[in-house]
């Protein structure tokens, strides 16, 4: 019988600290598989965010830097500018990337920095206990929006993939999900494409991943997936928002 489960070389043996049913673990695995498949572990540098994934470096087996909250794209820029031969990616949550780090991600994308961003959108500040994020859905209850997000007061949730796609600089921008196997297969393809573009020295790439936070949503892992499918996917539409090839055809 063929072995069906083998840990990627790029993943360490350490058990993760993530809550049961949290999608961070799946995303780590996808990134690790892609790094293995592309054979780039020895020249990859990951940047962990401030958020639940701050300790991501414990679960990977290549070089890592831990950035200040939201600054991962600036840190990645620093690395990639002085060492263009390294493969660099940031791993960021929605509070990290779409709130405090909005300036850094937009400008790195707009300069066309040749690194990859894995953007984990779970609609809340997971690590600090489930406060409202820029991506929190209209009416969604969080610890700082107990009556539900009031868009009259704080505006509509930010759609990062669309926002960054509005920039002219060639980029690979896609939104995928990691809710069920059928989505995960597509998410992995997108992550692989993003790293491939970087390997070819082509462009900045961002893979937004619709994710879950069962703990702070107050749902079971299974309920979380249903909730995300029913509530997130209609607003955060999946698809390829921009590819470098299209830009070249213009």
């Amino acid at each position: 019988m063929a072995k069906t489960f083998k840990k990627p070389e790029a993943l360490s043996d350490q058990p993760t600290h993530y809550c049961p049913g949290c999608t961070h673990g799946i995303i780590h695995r996808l990134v690790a598989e892609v790094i293995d498949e592309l054979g780039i572990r020895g020249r990859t540098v990951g940047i962990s965010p401030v958020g639940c994934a701050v300790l991501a470096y414990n679960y990977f087996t290549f070089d890592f830097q831990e950035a200040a909250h939201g600054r991962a794209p600036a840190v990645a820029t620093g690395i990639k500018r002085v060492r263009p031969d390294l493969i660099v990616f940031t791993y960021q949550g929605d509070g990290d990337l779409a709130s405090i780090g909005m300036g850094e991600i937009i400008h790195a994308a707009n300069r066309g920095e040749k690194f990859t961003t894995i953007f984990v959108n779970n609609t809340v500040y997971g690590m600090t206990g489930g406060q409202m994020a820029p991506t929190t859905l209209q009416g969604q209850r969080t610890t700082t929006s107990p009556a539900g997000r009031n868009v009259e007061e704080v505006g509509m949730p930010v759609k990062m993939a669309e926002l960054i796609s509005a920039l002219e600089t060639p980029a690979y921008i896609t939104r995928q999900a990691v809710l069920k196997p059928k989505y995960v297969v597509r998410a992995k393809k997108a992550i692989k494409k993003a790293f491939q573009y970087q390997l070819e020295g082509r462009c900045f790439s961002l893979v937004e991943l619709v994710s879950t936070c069962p703990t702070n949503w107050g749902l079971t892992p299974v309920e979380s997936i249903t909730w995300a499918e029913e509530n997130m996917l209609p607003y955060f539409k999946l698809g390829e928002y921009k590819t470098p090839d299209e830009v070249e055809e213009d």
Partner: protein
Amino acid sequence: MGKILMKGNEAIGEAAIRAGCLNYFAYPITPQSEVAEYLSRRMPEVGGVFLQAESEIAVGNMLFGAAGCGARVFTTSSSPGISLMSEAISYISSAQLPVVFVNIVRGGPGLGGILPSQADYFQATKGGGHGDYRLLVMAPASVQEAVEMVMKAFPLAEKYRNPVMILGDGLIGQMMEPVEFPEHLRSEPSNKDDWATNGMDTRKSSKPNLVKSLFLNAELLEEHNLVLKAKYDRMKQEEVRYESYNMDTDYQALIVSFGTMSRVCRTVIDNLKAQGFETAMIRPQTLFPFPEGPIKQAALKESCKVVITLELNMGQMVEDVERSVQGNRPVHWYGKAGGDVPTPEEVIEVIKSFF
């Protein structure tokens, strides 16, 4: 190579290149934007990296990334910009990364003004960012000295794996003076394979490197802070630099002054000497570590009645001078913070008022 006439800001940019630093990230701000303008032309000529970032917040974190993967990097800015970089300076200090910062200080607080100032003494020597960290801070009093300090800053930053700051002011940045770039101060970047995230293939290792500042465990964070403290203590032992002036006389007043202000004090000491009144000066060249011992010793000379701190701010270094003198002599202060540098006549009046 002989001397050439150069503006301070351009000389600082050239000094970094001559020191062997080919990576520069910055954001424009008066009175030091000429460094970025100069390096936007020079870095491509020498195959280096020049990047104008979107903010000083980004600059600081770009330096973190670049230094973290083993590159020699630096930036230049002025006061409000350094405030924004203070976040990254704290992280850089904790992650123990060698980075050189040049602050061409302008008046503050807030937007303040664009004229010369030394109002960032506290920010540079006592923090600015959060946490227990120290920068090694050097204060030049001439364009030539700025060049030499920039060139020395890189090996020092690497020796301690700690950020080094050059604290200049608008006058040092804007002034034209003859300079020479001492060939012997060029240094090769040190080997950083033990810790830098330069890629496992690069260092032919299968062990990942990690650049970080998070220590959730109390014992580990304590241990980390003790490692940092040991470095700062070692700096106090090994890196104190100062210059003394007119010390072999029976001076009645000891002046402590640094940077641009100390140039005025030299003239003051010469003029007072001509009037038959001896004063002397200690000019700290490192603000951290501070020349505490030499200042105390100089203050204790029998002829010395008072210690006078002169600085371009509302009284910051004077706290370190008081700490050094330890109550053995009265410590006075005079300074201006608006951007006008006191004239020698003004300073002489002040000194005489203490007698």
